[in-house]
Each structure stands twice: as C-alpha cells, then as structure tokens.
C-alpha cells in the first residue's frame, strides 16, 4: 500500500463521515428557516419566535465561564429519549393558571441569542430549561425571584429546603460592603457581619437575569408539537 493510497483511503473513510455528520448538518442548521404559524392550527399569524428577555448574551457567558454546564443540563428530552417531561415542572408547568399544561420538549428555536447551547455534561443538579418559570411560580412564589436566586447562588444550603443540594457556594459573585447610611436595597438577606452587607456583583446580576430568562415552555407551533392529543380535548 503506497502512501498515496493510504492517504486516499483515510480521506475517504474520514471525509464521508465528516461531511455527513459534521459539515453538512452544521451549515444546513445555520440557516434554520423560521416556522410560519398556521392560523387554523395555531390560532395566530406570523412566525414562531420564542421570546426571551434578560441579559442573555452576557449571562450565558458567566454561565459558561463558571462551568454551570458541568452539573446542569438545558435540554428536556422527548419521551423516547428520557423521562424529563414527567419530572415535575421540568418541561413547563403541569397546570398553569392561564395556559393549562405548558410542558413540552426543547426545540431548536429555544436557544436564540446564545452562541453555544449548554446541553450540559452531567446532571448532578436538575435541568434548567424552565428554571425561570419554576423560580417565579414555585420556589419564590409571591416573593422576589431574583432575590431568591441570589441567596441560592450565595450558598444553596442556607435554604433549609435545599439542605441536600451539592451545588457549590458562589461567594465570589458577591461584594462585601460596609453599610453607609441606610442598607442597600440589593443586599441579600445573609448575615455579612456587623455593619456590612453583601451585594451581587455584575457577573451575578447577568447570571441571574439569564437564569430568569430560562422559560422554554411557550406554546410550540403545531408543526413542532409532537405531543399526543390530550384526552380531555378528545372528549
């Protein structure tokens, strides 16, 4: 076997797979066509565009830099690939006051505004696809969702309900300041020592804003909705 044949053989065996699973899918998905809503099925006009509000780009950066993706995923798999949809409030809310059952799997339009989808490495912690939704309706119901997240980030186990959490504390996202005059409205409710308070720094603010934007349970257009027809709808 000459070097030429050898390299041709390698290029062919590698090149076909490289084109098929890497290059072509990457460039095809680069120009993902928006999904037009159909008036008959979706009851709305225009295009499907899951709206997200918050500091998504710089929050995602803080998320990446501090390795949140090592323990948290951001994908709710369809039922053929896992049981994520059955976990309480992972894929959306089972019974939202206005919208009913909002649970759905993650779709390709859920990551707008991010450069890299943090699908995640391991699940030491829960999936975060709908963390913003869960914080607002469940964990911090009636309170300030951002404040709940700040305290949670400062030290998860300060919250008696999370005593089993093995999430690391992130004191470095907070700045310890002397109280001059009246205490700051942003200060978290953690004892910071006499005459001192803890203020979230700019990274923490970006991160919390990003985490609160994680509400991937908007109604999916009919073209993307693979959920089986609801029983009560049939009746």
């Amino acid at each position, binding site marked *: *076997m000459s070097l030429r044949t*050898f390299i041709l*053989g*390698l290029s062919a*065996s*590698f090149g076909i797979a*490289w084109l*098929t*699973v*890497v*290059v072509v*899918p*990457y*460039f095809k*998905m*680069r120009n*993902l066509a928006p999904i037009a809503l159909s008036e008959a099925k979706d009851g709305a006009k225009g295009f499907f565009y899951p709206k997200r509000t918050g500091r998504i780009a710089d929050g*995602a*950066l803080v998320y*990446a*830099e*501090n*390795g*949140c*993706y*090592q*323990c948290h*995923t951001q*994908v709710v*798999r*369809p039922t*053929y*690939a*896992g*049981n994520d949809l*059955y976990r309480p409030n992972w894929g959306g809310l089972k019974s939202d006051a206005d919208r009913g059952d909002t649970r759905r*799997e*993650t779709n*390709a339009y*859920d*990551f707008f505004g991010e*450069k*890299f989808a*943090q*699908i*995640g*490495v*391991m699940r*030491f*912690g829960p999936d975060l696809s709908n963390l913003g939704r869960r914080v607002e309706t469940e964990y911090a119901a009636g309170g300030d969702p951002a404040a709940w997240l700040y305290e949670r980030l400062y*030290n*998860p186990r300060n919250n008696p309900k999370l005593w*089993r959490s*093995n*999430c*690391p*504390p*992130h*004191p*470095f996202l907070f700045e310890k300041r002397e109280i001059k005059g009246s205490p700051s409205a942003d200060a978290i409710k953690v004892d910071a020592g006499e005459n001192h308070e803890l203020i979230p720094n700019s990274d923490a603010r970006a991160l919390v804003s990003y985490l609160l934007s994680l509400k991937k349970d908007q109604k999916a257009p009919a073209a993307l909705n693979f959920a089986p027809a609801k029983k009560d709808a049939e009746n």
Partner: protein
Amino acid sequence: MSSDSTTTTDQDALLRASIDRSLRHPVMFFLTSGAAWLAVSILLGVIASAKVHNPGFLADCAWLTYGRAFPAHMNALVYGWGMQAAFAVIIWLMARLSRKECNAVGTILAAGHVWNLGVGLGVVGILAGYGTGMPWMEFPAFAWPVLLVSYCAILIWSFIQFRVRPEGHVFISQWYILAAMIWFPWVFITANTLLHCMPGHPVMAAGINAWFKSAMIFLFFTPVALGAAYYLAPKVTGRPVFSYSLAKLGFWSLAIIAPWAGMQKLAGAPIPFFLPYLGAAATALLFIPACAAGFNLIRTMLSCPKTLAESPSLRFTMAGIIGLAVLAVAAVLLNLPGSTLKMTQFSLSGYGFDVLAIYGFFTLVMFGATYFIVPRVTRREWLSRRLIKMHFLFSAYGVVFVALIALFGGLLQGAGQEDWQQPWEDAASRAIPYAVASTFSWSLILFSNVFFFLHLALMWMRLGRRSLHPTLLVSSHDAHGSSPHGEEGDIDNAGPGHAAAH
C-alpha cells in the same frame, strides 16, 4: 569505525543509537513536562471530585470552584499530558521505524515550549474564569491557533521522515501513527473553526463539540496508543505480531467507524434525529476495531509469558490493552438507545468512559512506551524497580476504581434520574458515594505519578543506572546475589557499536 569493517548488526546498532541520541531532549522534554501536567491535572481532579461530595470545600476560592476546576482538570489531562505523551512517542517511533535521525531538534523543542505555554495560559485562563464553556475546548479562544501551529512544528518532521525513509516495509505502528497525525489536525481545525470563527446554530455547535470529544479519543489517543502497543508487543517479546490480517481489519474498521461516533451525547436534543443515534451505533460498533487490536496484541504478548512477567513496558502495555477491552465493552453497554443511553447520557458514566479511554487505556500504554524509550534515549537504566512497581500498582488499581466506579455508579445515578416519581435529590445523592471513592482513588494515582515525574526527571538528568542490564520487575539472576542491579550494576553503558545497545 568504517562501514567496511563492521557488520550489519553493528551498523544497525549505530543507527539506532544515533537516532536515540538525536531525540534525547525532545522526547524527554515532552515526557517530563507531560508528567508534570499529569500531576497538575490529577490534583485538579481530586479537588473537583472532593467538591462533589463536600461542596463547601475551598468554596471561597473563585479559581477553584467546581465549574472551573473540573474543566481545567480535563483540559490539562488532554492537552498537557495526553498530547505531549503522544508527541514523545510519535517522534521517537516514527524516527526509529523510518530509520531516520531527527534533524529538527531545535524547532521541535521551541515548538514544545510554545505548546506548554499555550496549555499553561489556557489552564490559567479557565481557572481565572475565561473558559469558553465548550467541553474539552474550554481554553480561551487564543489558545487553539497556538496549539495548532506548535503541533504542526512538532510533528511535520515525523511526516517528512516517513516520506524519505528507505524503501521497505511499512509497519503496523506506522499506519496508526500516520493516521493519528492526519486525523488530529483535521478534527481540531474543524471543531475550532466551526465553533470559534463561524457561529452556527447553537445546538448543532454542541453536537460538533460532542463529536470533537469522541474524535479526540478514537481518532487520536486510540491510534497513538495502538501504534505504540503494536511496536512494543513484538519488540519486547521478540515474536512477530499474532495476525497481520487481524491488524489490518482493526485499523481500517477504526478508520471507517470512529468518525461517525460522538453525537449520542445529544440524544433527544433538537438536532437532526439521525445524528445522535448514528453516533450511538458507531460508538457501539467500535467494539470491532478495539477487539481486533486488543485480541491481536494480547495474543502477541502472551506468546512470551516470561518476558511479560518481567518487563515493565509489557506489563503497562498489557494493562492498557485490557483497558481497551473494557472500553470496548463499555462502548456497547453504555450506548444502547433503547435502555442505557438515556441513563448514561447525563451521568457519571460519561466521565468514567473518558477517564477509562484516556487513563485506563491510552496513558497506561504511554507509560509502557516510556519505560521502553527513556533508557534508550538517555542511555541509562531506570533507577528503581520498586518505583516502577509502585507506579503500576497505584496507577492500574487507581484507574480501575475511578473508571469502573464512574461507569457503573453512573448507571445507577442515571436509573435514579429516570425514576421521575422519586424526588430529584434522590438521584443527585446517588452519585455521592461514588464521588468519595473517586476522590480516594485519584489521590492514589496522584501519589504514584508524583514519583513517576521525579523518576523521569532524574533519568533526564542522566542520573539513571549505568548498566547493560535493563531494570526488570523481578530480580534477574539469582547467581548475582541480592543486588537488584546485578554485579555489573556499575558498568558504563558501553556506547554504540556494542550489540547490546538496543
């Protein structure tokens, strides 16, 4: 010594000695700095693992938070140790097998320093909070062109040596090494340009990243380790490779199957449906090349049981090839789409698989190659049999613990994750006992590798034994009394021209 008056054997010995001499500093540089990175990586791994079961540990230090320590650990392992060990083995094997001296020592050493600088800045970058958030590619974006350029400057010479070698047989090792040298830049450039320079769909970017991880294992570390093993097994035993056609089957099936693997990490994520399941199928099919090569090499090594018992190179290589066999079984068992894939996708098993591939297979074979190569390039024998034995004991048993615990602990953890009727904390806490065990066994590995590093550094300083007798794992000749070095322990290595210098 004119060529007329010497025999072919003497000329061969001279050539080998001059190749070894020409490569002394590059090989020792890569091995020693690689071993230092290995120790750093394992230290970071111990810290990260300790944080899983003890989240308050070193909590105030932003640099060592789990989400930074863990990626620093993996990247130091892959680029600091793995790649550099591969460089040392590739440049030496290619020179020996192509029968060419190395003429670019200065360039290689300079590029090696640049590589280390790139890895160093990259690891500090991750710890300082500038990681990119893409697994195994967490180095800040400046690092990858630096690594790529220095890679080319280090290995282009081996490619040239192969091109200008005297006509003759191409060894199995050369196929694997040549293929690895071609695959790595292809994979590395693809993943880095797509993810850093040509932003595409974020989910597909995650898919490319998963493919990159798998390609690094199966298209670089695996062929380099197999190339080294296909050299060591016949060389040390003195027997031919068990089956040449099996070797061919192993090589080409790897070349055809491995590039498809990897995207099973994204099963259920919104990318084209066929990609993850094709990836799962390809990963399971890697059983074929792994078993072909593993069976072939094990049969070759078993042809000479006495040498296998005595030679440190063979013992490490054998352990590494057994690691490959376990890896092959794990590749099948962890990726069954109907049952196990959903449990292993986001559990400790993925880490176990990576560690098994990089440490349990690749690294152990690299240790085997190190124990063979270093005495030849330094012309000194290893100082202490006990150090080698201890290195083997802690490394092999340590990695068995880390990898198997993570693989099977991960399966249990995954079963907990899938059990949606139980609270999430139950699934999360299932991982904790395995994390405790993993911290413990990484500490053992760290202990053994600190000594390995010191042993290597002493060898580089040429403080090894001056002896014609290789350091074997069992005391050689009873007639020579109790000294493990034998009576000739002080005889200088007689230099080229003496047939024993092989």
